[in-house]
Each structure stands twice: as structure tokens, then as C-alpha cells.
């Protein structure tokens, strides 16, 4: 291993090979199993094509899913005697190659082995260049906002670029999925030349940015050179920025009357207030948006605004905020949190409750602002909304609102559970989740292309319907055995769930929904899904306790 390039390639292979092999094998196995059913049907080949094409970038990105560094992913390599051009070029070429290979190798094998008409070279080239651009947009700066902007800009540019590249030469306009042929994707010489230029440009941009990181000009908002360095702020995301603002605005002293009050205080300060602040910012924009829309009426601004509002959980990092506490491999929960003298069930209840309340609060603020500014949009809009609401009994509306809050809290609790289980089982869970998602996609394709019989669909629904109560029962047994929940607490949870179920029945009855017209499997699954709040309330404390006492 004399040459630095060889050493670097070896290092990157060592870091990524598990995911690369996993996704490669998944693509091959998935493609093989679909082709085994569809035989020589070129439409089946298209399904396989889409499957492998979507797995390739997913696999390449999965290789970096656990990387804690912002900007260039291996900043520790900055001390090596290698030029920045090489430091950026080798990994970028590697990632591009990996992305292309996860597609190309299964495609070639399936083409030779089963005669599937899969195009190879143009698709691999497109995937490789897309990956290089993605790497560049993620590596060129440590600033989170700049990286986000770059990714968004790339996505926006993808549309016109796709139109100009015009790679699809297969059947168009017919029924979905279209038949596939080896020449369905084609690129001319000048197209290839432009792709190479794009890759070189991405490399040059990344080299400039990484050089700044290397000489310390771009410490930006991320001091996390080594994970969990004391004395330095951990990843400052958007949440952190808002927290700084909120810290000045709301300096309510921590209540010392009870641990529960203090725990709520810290969670509200750390998690809910920043999200609500985001909601307030959007709420302030609402009148303007509605006024502009009212005069132009092309809806683009309105759709963007709604999308932005709905994505608050993601913008605030709520899906990842349960990760913020992760410290080291062997202690997924920060000792500061884990050594607090508070029961695990209460801890998780406060965290989930406050997280859900924060997001719902933000949405409520936006909704109130939007409703108040409805007259700016359309004169009759407010009146017709009130009319629609007034047509329903007040109890029904209130009940629906309560159910909505409960459902959303359930989702957050399930997310927290997955996060905790993920912290315990790490890569294994991740790979398992990917397998489940891939299976679901394959299933959806199979259903869409009518390759799956009614009976087979029914089996899946029944399996899911049985899995929820069985899993819930298992979690109940485990929490009681581990004494994470006392019998009294469990009874209270069960009582709350019964009340919710009664409310759900009342609201459903009010809108005239009934189970009878549904297929038996769907009806049972609906009933079984109604158990989910109970499942989440039991599973989350259990998973957190496993993480706390790992």
C-alpha cells in the first residue's frame, strides 16, 4: 500500500463496504425475484430497472448515514501529506463509482443471467455524475444552511438538466409501467462530454470549499471535529439558532418544585420553543402570502407555504432530535440524561409529549394566523370555512381535534421508539428497516402491476393486523417484567386508551364511517391500528429503558 491513492481507496472501502455489498446484493436479489415472476415481460424489466436505480444512490448515501462530521466527511485526513485536490478527488470518484456500480453490476448480471433488457453504460454515467454533484454539494462547506441551499439548488436544476439530457428513448405515454429495452436510455457524445464537465466542476467547487475547511477558514457553525468534544457546541442546526433567540426572549427560571416540572422546563426550552418560534415566523408570513395569492391566484406560493408549514417537524429536526443526545457507541444516552434520578417512563413521556406539543403548537399558531388573514385571500373564504365547521356538531369537531393530537403524539412516540431501538441495535436495525422499505416498494410495484393476487395482499394485511396486538402484548410483558411501568401506570395508560377508543367510535359514527362495507382483512387491520397509541405508550418506555441500561 505504497501509494496514498491506494491507501485512501482502501480506507473508503473499509468504511463503506458493508452498505455497498448489502445494497448490491439487495438489488440483485430483488431484481432476480421480480424477474423470476415476470419472465420476459419488458414491463417487468422496467420495474426491476426502477428498483435498482433507486437502490444505487440509497446505498451510496447509506454508507455515510452515520458520519458525524459536517462538510468534508473525513476531516481527520486533513493532517495527511496529500494535496486537497487528491483528498477530494479520490473519495468523490470512489463514491461516484460505488453509486454506478451498485446499479451496473446487478444490471449486467441480470442481463447476462436472465436476459433482462437493462441499459447499463448511460445509466451508470448518470448515476455517477449525480453522486459526484451530491457529494460536492455536501462537502463544499460545513454550514448547514449553505449545504441545504446547495442541495435544493441541485434539485431545482435537475428538471431542466433532465429535459436537455433527454436520456429516455423508450416508449412514452402508454400505460404504466412502460416496456424497457436495452436502448431505452441513450446519451449522445456531447451529452457525455457535458456530464464529464459537470463532474469536473463539482470536483473543483468541492476542492475550493474543502481547502477552506482544511486551513480552518470554514469552521462555520460546526465545531464538532471529534464527536462530543467538551467545551464546543454540538452541531448547531436551525434548532440551535432559534434556541439562542428564544433564550433571550423567554428566560423563565427553571422551576425547582419537582423533577417533573424541571424536566418539562428543559424539554420546552430545548425542543418545543425553537419549533414554536419557527411557527411564529411562518405565521407572520401568512398574511403576506395569502394577500399575494389572493391577487395573483397561481397557487405556487401557497403550495410552498403549506409545504413549509407541514415540514416543520423535519425542519426543526424533530425526526432526528431524539438523536441529538447520542454520544458514544456504548452509551447511546448521554450520561447527563441517563443519571438523572427520574423514572424512564416519565422521562420518555415528557420528551414525547413536549416534542408533539411543540409541533402542534407551531401548527396551531400558523393555522390561527392563516384563518385570521383569510379575508385578504378571498372575501368569502372565512365565511365559508365557518359555515363548513358550524355544520358539524361542536363535540364532533373537538373530538376529531383530540384524536388528531393523539394520533400525532403516537407517531412521535413510535419515532422515539425506533430511535431508541436503533441506538441499541445500530446498523442491524438500519439494514432491517431498509429491507422492510425495499420489500414494501417491491410489494407496491407488484400490486400496481397486478402481479399480486387478492389472496396474497390479504395475507400481508392479516399479518400486519396480527403483528400489532402481538407486539403490543410482548411490550406489555417486557415493561412489567423490567418494572419500567408499574401496574398502576399501565392501568392508567389502558384507561386513557379506552377513552380515546370510545371517542374515536363516537367521531367515526358522527361522520357515518363504518367497518361493515370494508373487506374483512382491512376491517381487522383498522381495528388493530387503533391499538397503536397503546402500543406506543408501552413500547417507548421499554425501548428507552433498554437504551438507558444498555
Amino acid at each position, binding site marked *: 500500500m505504497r501509494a496514498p491513492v491506494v491507501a485512501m481507496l482502501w480506507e473508503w472501502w473499509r468504511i463503506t463496504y458493508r452498505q455497498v455489498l448489502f445494497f448490491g446484493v439487495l438489488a440483485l436479489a430483488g431484481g432476480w425475484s421480480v424477474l423470476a415472476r415476470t419472465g420476459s415481460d419488458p414491463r417487468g424489466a422496467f420495474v426491476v430497472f426502477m428498483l435498482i436505480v433507486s437502490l444505487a444512490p440509497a446505498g451510496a448515501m447509506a454508507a455515510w448515514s452515520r458520519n458525524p462530521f459536517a462538510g468534508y466527511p473525513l476531516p481527520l485526513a486533513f493532517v495527511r501529506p496529500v494535496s486537497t485536490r487528491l483528498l477530494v478527488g479520490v473519495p468523490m470518484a470512489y463514491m461516484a463509482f460505488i453509486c454506478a456500480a451498485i446499479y451496473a453490476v446487478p444490471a449486467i448480471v441480470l442481463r447476462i443471467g436472465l436476459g433482462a433488457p437493462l441499459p447499463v453504460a448511460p445509466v451508470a454515467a448518470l448515476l455517477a455524475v449525480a453522486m459526484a454533484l451530491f457529494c460536492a454539494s455536501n462537502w463544499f462547506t460545513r454550514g448547514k444552511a449553505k449545504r441545504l441551499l446547495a442541495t435544493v439548488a441541485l434539485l431545482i436544476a435537475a428538471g431542466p438538466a433532465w429535459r436537455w439530457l433527454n436520456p429516455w428513448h423508450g416508449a412514452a405515454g402508454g400505460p404504466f409501467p412502460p416496456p424497457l429495452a436495452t436502448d431505452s436510455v441513450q446519451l449522445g457524445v456531447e451529452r457525455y462530454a457535458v456530464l464529464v464537465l459537470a463532474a469536473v466542476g463539482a470536483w473543483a467547487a468541492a476542492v475550493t470549499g474543502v481547502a477552506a475547511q482544511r486551513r480552518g477558514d470554514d469552521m462555520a457553525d460546526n465545531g464538532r471535529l471529534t464527536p*462530543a468534544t*467538551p*467545551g*464546543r*457546541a*454540538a452541531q448547531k442546526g436551525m434548532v*440551535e439558532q432559534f*434556541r*439562542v433567540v428564544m*433564550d433571550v426572549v423567554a428566560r423563565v*427560571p*427553571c*422551576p*425547582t*418544585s*419537582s*423533577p417533573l*416540572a*424541571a*424536566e418539562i*422546563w*428543559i424539554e420546552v*426550552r*430545548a425542543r418545543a420553543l425553537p419549533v414554536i418560534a419557527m411557527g411564529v415566523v411562518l405565521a407572520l408570513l401568512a398574511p403576506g402570502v395569502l394577500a399575494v395569492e389572493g391577487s395573483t391566484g397561481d397557487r405556487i406560493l401557497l403550495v410552498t407555504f403549506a409545504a413549509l408549514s407541514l415540514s416543520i417537524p423535519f425542519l426543526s429536526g424533530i425526526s432526528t432530535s431524539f438523536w441529538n443526545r447520542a*454520544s458514544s457507541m*456504548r*452509551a447511546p*444516552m*448521554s*450520561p*447527563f440524561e*441517563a*443519571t*438523572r*434520578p*427520574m*423514572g*424512564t417512563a416519565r422521562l420518555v413521556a415528557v420528551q414525547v409529549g413536549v416534542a408533539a406539543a411543540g409541533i402542534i403548537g407551531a401548527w396551531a399558531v400558523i393555522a390561527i394566523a392563516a384563518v385570521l388573514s383569510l379575508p385578504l385571500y378571498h372575501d368569502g373564504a372565512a365565511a365559508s370555512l365557518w359555515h363548513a365547521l358550524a355544520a358539524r356538531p361542536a363535540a364532533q369537531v373537538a373530538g376529531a381535534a383530540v384524536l388528531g393530537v393523539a394520533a400525532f403524539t403516537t407517531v412521535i412516540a413510535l419515532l422515539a421508539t425506533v430511535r431508541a431501538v436503533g441506538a441499541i441495535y445500530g446498523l442491524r436495525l438500519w439494514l432491517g428497516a431498509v429491507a422492510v422499505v425495499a420489500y414494501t416498494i417491491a410489494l407496491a410495484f407488484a400490486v400496481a402491476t397486478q402481479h399480486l393476487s387478492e389472496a396474497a395482499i390479504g395475507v400481508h394485511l392479516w399479518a400486519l393486523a396480527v403483528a400489532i396486538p402481538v407486539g403490543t402484548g410482548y411490550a406489555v410483558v417486557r415493561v412489567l417484567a*423490567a*418494572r419500567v411501568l408499574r401496574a398502576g401506570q399501565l392501568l392508567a395508560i389502558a384507561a386513557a386508551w379506552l377513552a380515546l377508543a370510545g371517542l374515536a367510535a363516537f367521531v367515526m359514527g358522527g361522520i357515518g364511517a363504518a367497518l361493515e362495507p370494508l373487506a374483512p382483512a382491512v376491517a381487522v387491520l383498522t381495528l388493530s391500528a387503533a391499538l397503536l397509541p397503546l402500543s406506543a405508550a408501552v413500547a417507548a418506555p421499554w425501548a428507552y429503558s433498554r437504551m*438507558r*441500561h*444498555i
Partner: protein
Amino acid sequence: MTNVVEVQGLSRRFGGTLALDGVDFCATQGLVHGLVGVNGAGKTTLIKHLLGLLRPTSGTVRVLGLDPVRDPVNVLRRVGYLSEHREMPEWMRVAELLRYTQAYYPSWDMGYARELLDTFGLDPTKRVGGLSQGMRAQTGLVLAVAHRPDVLILDEPSSGLDAVVRQDILDAIVRTVADDGRTVIFSSHLLDEVERMSDRVTMIHRGKIALDGMRDEVCGAHHVTQLRFAERLDRLPQIDGVLAASGGARSWSVVHAGPVERLRDAAARAGGDVSESRNATLEEIFVARVGRGTRAEAA
């Protein structure tokens, strides 16, 4: 004297590696317990079991008579803990952190906490994220002792700190024990610190207890003895009880367990003569027991 911590047959496996292997450990009320061992020997793993942060693969852990995994609240309320990395929320101010921590401990003594802040010269309006390493350690120390815990557990409290802050930590240990006989368990790689500051010493090596006893007895049971030989020797011959040897030719210095008389007899059989002997220091025992090229396995 009562045992506030009792660990029996504790084993813990991380994947394929056995981090702790049948560890027995007791902490007696009113004593300072020093845990020593090379990096990765299992000190932190043992400490995390005492706090319930890790679940034993086998064996039992009792702190104040309770299982810290099954009953974390009642154990943690009476324990003070300073971790090696001193994790604290970066965005809080020191004063907020004190108030926040106070809420969890009915026995919290705000007067004592303020007094310690003053002694350390810490500014309560500062953000945790803006503190230096030393200030962080001091803040963590205040959080660990201000509720006057029955057991104070410090994991590598001195790592990465300057002499001034190290003294603050040693003072906190002395105060904890001197005032109403509470118990301290601390791990350290600074052996002179452990020798000064512990009544009882436990040496962990590769997940097992290599040595455990009262400090004076441990040190009294090991000697450093000079041996002289009539002829030049390239290697020291096998002598019973010798843990490690240095020197060469006619003059050798050995660390050994047991009385000097026994060594004198053993050395005489190998043609050597004892010239001088003294008690070994903890560091000498440590290096002899767990260092490279020692004869610990043979002994």
C-alpha cells in the same frame, strides 16, 4: 462497617469482547476507593454498572442495597457522579444548570453549591458551551456534590486538567469523606493521586480484578528489593514471588510480593544476595502487575 456497593460475579460482554469477567467489588462506607487500570481495562465499564447505565450480562450489582437497573431513581438520588467527558447541555447557563439539577434532589444544598462556585471563581451567568475544560470539570463537580450524596463516583476526574483544578477535585473527595463519613469511588490513571487519596485500592486488568485491598496493606505486601549476584547475568533467573525486574549484570532491582525474607531465601538458591529493600509504591506495583513483560502471570 457497611458495604454501600456490592458487586458479585459481574460479567459484561460487548459483542465478542468480554469487558468485565467475574468482577467482585465492594465499597465500604466512609472510605475512599481508588480504581486503577490501564486504558480499556474495564474501570469505566464497572462504574457505569454502578450507575445502572449498563446492564450486567451476568452477576449482581447492588448500590445502597438496590439494583441500579431496576430502581434507578432511588439509587441515582443518593449518588453523585462526574463522568470523564463531563456531558452537560451546552446551551444552559451555569446558574440555570444548578437550578435545574436542584429540582431532582430533595437534599440539594444551594448554599454549598454557591460557596463552591465562589471558591472556584465560576461565573454563574456563563454558558456551559463557553466554559474551558477546567471550568467544566468544576461545574460538573458542583453538580455531583451539592446534594451531599451518600456515594460520590468520579470517573477519571483528573483527565485533561491542570494542577489547580485537580486539587479542587481532591479537596472535594476529602470533604465528602470527612463530613459525615460518606463514600467515594474514583478511577484514575494518575497513580500518585490514587496512592494519596484512596483508603482502598482496586486494580482492574483485562476485565478482571488483579489486586484489591487496603492501600497500606497492598503497598506493605509488595517490596522493591536490590539483588546482587557474584557473576554477570544476562537474564534474571526465575525467583519465586518476583513480579518484575529491571537492571542488569550483577545488580538487579525487583518488585515482589511477600516478605523480604522469603525473597532472600529464594534469591540465595539462585546465587543472589539481598542488599536493600523497601516498600513498593503503587505505581511500581501497578507497572509490575499489569505492565509489559512482567511475570504477573507466573506469580
